[in-house]
């Protein structure tokens, strides 16, 4: 009906098309960033808390 070509037709090399949806995305970098940020927040919070308790 439409003049738009379907996705399958438009992709030049349609080799990996169906494979990608089953695979888990690689979140290693995200995981590392989240944990580094979390550690930074906790360390800052604990240092301020210790400063408060000892003053």
């Amino acid at each position, binding site marked *: 009906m439409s003049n738009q070509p379907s996705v399958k037709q438009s992709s030049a090399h349609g080799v990996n098309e169906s494979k990608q949806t089953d695979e888990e995305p690689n979140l290693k970098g*995200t*995981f590392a960033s*989240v944990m580094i940020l*979390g550690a930074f*927040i*906790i360390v800052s919070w604990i240092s301020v808390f210790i400063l408060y308790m000892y*003053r």
Partner: protein
Amino acid sequence: MHLHKYEKIWLTFGIGSLLVFLIVLGIGAFYQGTQPPSCLVTIDPQNVQAHESFKEESLGLQKVGENEYVVNVLASAFQYNLGKDDKGSPVRTIRIPKGANVTFQATTTDVVHGFQIAGTNVNMMLEPGYISDFETTLDNPGEYTILCNEYCGIGQHTMSAVLEVYEP
């Protein structure tokens, strides 16, 4: 709903730390009774002398018990009124023995001022119409600067006093 293994870890970690912080906050507030320095105790800013603690003769350091002191402070642009010494000149330095229990009570007659004893936890905002108080024990001998850290006008940087904690 499908969650990635890593997502489960950081969600648990995030919610866990939130719970820890809330529990610490709750213990401080409900068990230890921590409250903000200004907690709804009001005063007429136009007539602070009517209040027992802010009469001319009550200002400054007062010994109220064995090793227990009260410091009444009247802030105005741009000075802290800490009473007068024996010679009748304004007090600029307060001396408190180490380890004594001290309550600072302060208010302002004009605009918002600050009252911070640099290097200690004593740090409060003084608002016209409210009395701020902070109870503490000063364990480290030394000379501390009392200063105003709320912008109150052109002479704000001149607004200071000295607290001396000495070995008894």
